[in-house]
């Protein structure tokens, strides 16, 4: 079955590429596009695992990833950005160059960590895990180096994409967990949306910088 693993690695690798693409976008709209591309790739990867491992329950996870994170959420966020007139440019804490370099280092770290650890498990499972960990870490990085609320949401959801990839890569992990992940994304989106709207009520921007001025103890 090495062909099956080649394809799943290809898809996981494509997700990693979109993770890097998320880091160098200049416009919020392109960030959302890159995120949609990542989620659709995730849906393909999960569907491939479902088919090749003969685990039909995973098709549900793939469907959730495709419909919700590939289509509905990016569209909703885009409409929000347009309606609220939020800055169309991505506001950066760290420039593109350094962010990409740190991203590369994190990817290397993920490979090194997993390679050192999982000596007992099959090599293909190890590689899939390393790719998933790299995607999680890059999502984390995105939450740190991008300031705007919408881009932070995207960073968080990209992290969740990596988690779902890891969970499906672990053979036979019960469906309970996958549903819970999808569930958590739903709630997370709900909470995020509520917040973004509430923030809008109080401020003219959805820039986290504006919130930092509201720290209670620092006045």
């Amino acid at each position, binding site marked *: 079955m090495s062909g099956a693993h080649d394809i799943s690695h290809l898809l996981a690798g494509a997700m990693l590429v979109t993770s890097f693409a998320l880091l160098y976008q200049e416009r919020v709209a392109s960030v959302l596009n890159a995120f949609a591309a990542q989620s659709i790739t995730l849906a393909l990867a999960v569907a491939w695992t479902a088919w090749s491992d003969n685990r039909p329950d995973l098709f549900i996870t793939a469907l959730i990833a495709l419909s919700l994170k590939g289509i509905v959420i990016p569209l909703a966020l885009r409409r929000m950005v347009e309606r609220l007139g939020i800055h169309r440019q991505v506001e950066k804490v760290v420039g593109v160059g350094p962010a990409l370099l740190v991203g590369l280092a994190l990817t290397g770290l993920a490979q090194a960590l997993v390679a050192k650890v999982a000596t007992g498990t099959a090599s293909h499972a190890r590689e899939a895990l390393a790719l998933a960990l790299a995607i999680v870490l890059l999502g984390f990085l995105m939450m740190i180096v991008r300031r705007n609320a919408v881009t932070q949401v995207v960073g968080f959801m990209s992290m969740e994409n990596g988690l779902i990839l890891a969970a499906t890569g672990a053979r036979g*992990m019960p469906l309970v967990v996958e549903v819970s992940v999808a569930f958590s994304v739903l709630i997370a989106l709900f909470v995020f949306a509520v917040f973004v709207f509430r923030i809008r009520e109080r401020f003219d921007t959805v820039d986290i910088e504006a919130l930092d001025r509201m720290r209670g103890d620092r006045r």
Partner: protein
Amino acid sequence: MIQPWQLVVLVPFAAALLLVAIPSYRAGAVVNVIASALTLATGGWLVVSDRLVGDYAIIDELNIVFVVINTLVGFTTALFSAAYIGHEIESGRLSPAFVRFYHAMFQAMMGSMNVALIANNIGVMWVGLELATLITVVMVGLYRTPQAIEAAWKYFILASVGISLAFFGTILIYLAGQPALGEGVPAMTWSLLHGVAARLDPAILDLAFIFLLVGYGTKVGLAPLHAWLPDAHAEGPTPISAVLSGLLLNVALYALLRFKMLVSAHPDALDPGQIMVVMGLVSLIFAAFMLYQRRDIKRLFAYSSIEHMGLMVFAFGMGGPLANFAGLLHMAMHSLTKSGIFFAVGHIAQAKGTQRLADIRGLSVTHPRLAVLFALAVLAICGLPPFGVFMSEFLILTTTFARDPWLALLPAFGLLVGFGALLLRLQGTIFGEPVGPSHRVDGSFVPVMLHLALVLAAGIFLPPMLVTWFQRAAELLG
């Protein structure tokens, strides 16, 4: 026949569904108190019922301690919150529309915490803790002031990151268990994993524990992952501050302890105890110094919670029956005392119309009864005898001293620093010239007094039954 552990989960969730349908605030408050009392009763039933290890639930001496504290403080908080939220609505700080789902969320949060506590499946445990966290995020933002939104946003971002890392750790544990237990549910069942722990791959266990420590440690409020905690405590409604400090931190600590048991059962895996000792000490000493700079009364006690969680993590990190016993006792005492303090702080904030420490002065003149209760509660958390916190802190320090005299200096130093800060603040609030407006307090002091009485009773005489129970739980922890 229905089992008590099913009821501990079902009662809160059923109550939450019922409460969604009740629009009136007053009726909701009554149902909330009744449901919490029922949950407390089922918690008591759990103590006397048989221990069990099932596919879904595990009931052993360890998690019963947590469930009982959870249901007890949940009940007293429901009592406190009935009067508190009523006052907030009357004074116009909250509009009834926002508290429409407050009680339903409160019950759902209690239910999710109980799920996390009794689950034998590490995935379900994660879901319970995550659900409880998300509900508290919404509740922290309840006042909708810019500060409250900032606090809730920060809490949400940090908690989500923590939760994601903990989930990755959970996947790693599953991968470690898979070769020994096969695919599917068994490799996620904690008791089975614990049974075969010595045969798991130690390298995966190491990596998993690091992720779990950082993930769940964020929710325990360990420094340097604590940034969400003071904001969330200060800006949310006071009943939620009490539940956050008294219960949610415990549940996260419980999850961490379960994984510590798992990893330390393997001879070649890293020693989780040492890492926990270091993280606990850093949190303890850091928070003790931070206490001096606080200007907000709820922030002050939030940092005090970080300090005490640090001490507990230190005690559990030391390990051994005696240190674990002391850690468990300290957890129980801290939960009761700290939620009692937050109740008192809630009354004070309503009486003075502010949370700024500079504007809270001379309570002994304006509100003598409240001042006495608050002073007693603060002295209790400072670790003065005859309160229970003194006993547990004393036990932790003496056990450490017996094992490593030099190491014992560090927690002792941290506790003294914290002691000084709290005493300094206490003096300012109780004595001096009253400033600013002062309103009558019409809430009931029963919850505060109940907590203080329990802490005092535990400090004077700990029933032998309770001692043997905690000892058995401490032995489980290893």
